[in-house]
């Protein structure tokens, strides 16, 4: 009996894509359920590497610098802020708040963590802890 390898490969690929989509859907569902249960909005965020550390940006439209609560917990940073913009929950009379707990990258020098805000975008800069030793080329 001959087996068409291309069909088998396509079938396997389709199943992999479907499984990846199911996993993504489970993550998104958990996130939305968390938002609904806690009455909060999980903001969009990005983590980017720099030469000597990391930059995390968090999208907090409508929030002023003074309204942000930033709590460093060693292995994570918790961001909370009021969300005043019109959303479905706000229209139902619920006051929403932005909430996100961001896992910190490993090997960070805590003393270098700095945060700033511009146009509703919060930026957290952090540097990697100094360490290691120089290797001399032979």
């Amino acid at each position, binding site marked *: 009996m001959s087996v068409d390898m291309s069909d088998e490969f396509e079938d396997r690929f389709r199943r992999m*894509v479907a499984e*990846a989509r199911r996993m*993504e859907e489970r993550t*998104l569902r958990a996130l939305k359920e968390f938002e609904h249960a806690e009455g909060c*909005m999980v*903001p*969009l965020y*990005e983590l*980017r590497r720099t030469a000597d550390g990391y930059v995390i*940006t968090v*999208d907090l*439209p*409508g929030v002023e610098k003074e309204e942000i609560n930033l709590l460093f917990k060693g292995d994570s940073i918790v961001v909370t802020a009021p*969300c005043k*913009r*019109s*959303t479905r929950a706000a229209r139902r009379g619920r006051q929403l708040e932005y909430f996100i707990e961001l896992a910190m990258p490993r090997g960070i020098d805590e003393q270098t963590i700095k945060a700033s805000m*511009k*146009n*509703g*975008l919060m*930026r957290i800069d952090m540097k990697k802890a100094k360490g290691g030793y120089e290797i001399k080329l032979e």
Partner: protein
Amino acid sequence: MADFRFYELEKAEEGVIFFDGIPDTGLVGTIAAHHVVETKKMALSVRVDSDLLPPVAVVKDMDLFEPIGVFGSGALSVLISEVPIPTEIAKQFAKELVAWMVGKKFKEVISVGGVADPNRPEVEKPEVLYLTNSPKTFSSQVDLGKLKPLGSAFLVGSKAAFLLECFRAGLPTLALFAQSFMNYPDPGASASTLEALSNVGSLKVDVTDLVKSGEEMRVRFRDLMRRTMGEMERAQKSRELESPSLVV
């Protein structure tokens, strides 16, 4: 057999400009398309559906709609999608959409999008780049001299597939790309592209409200952005940060 069905609610006029709002980088085109449709109070003219799309219906005013639709008003048609186009069917969608557009004798295609720039938070006024297969057609409507041409680059995703089909079909096409956030809805970048199009009669819209309501837009489009991020990853969007090696 065609996989996408286009249900026309009104007889389409010929010689119309097609403006695409396919969700992509920073949802720049999507936000621009919504702003145009809402400002001009355009009505749904074509409903788009396919068995390949997830079973999603949009509820509005006690009616149900497909998540993809074309809104029409005189010399302009605007495509709006409430869902990102799944990567696996992006090419099929682009092929059949452009075949339908050719059949309906659309005159020109204008597409706006974003190019992700890590320095976007520092940029007050995003720069706009352009790509066209017909400078002659568009130079009388858009001051191309003020914009930078898009150099060698990769374009990735459903918008890339759509533009490729437009070029292949020989439809006069102008694509504008504003510096934008990759993963945050970017109404500022949308406003920059619409300003560059302010001399295109049917696309002339005031962007003051768009800029003013920017923060509200960022909340409103947050969920679509999150889903679009997943599709962009699947489409290998990071390639847009690489340089092509092909020299033609």
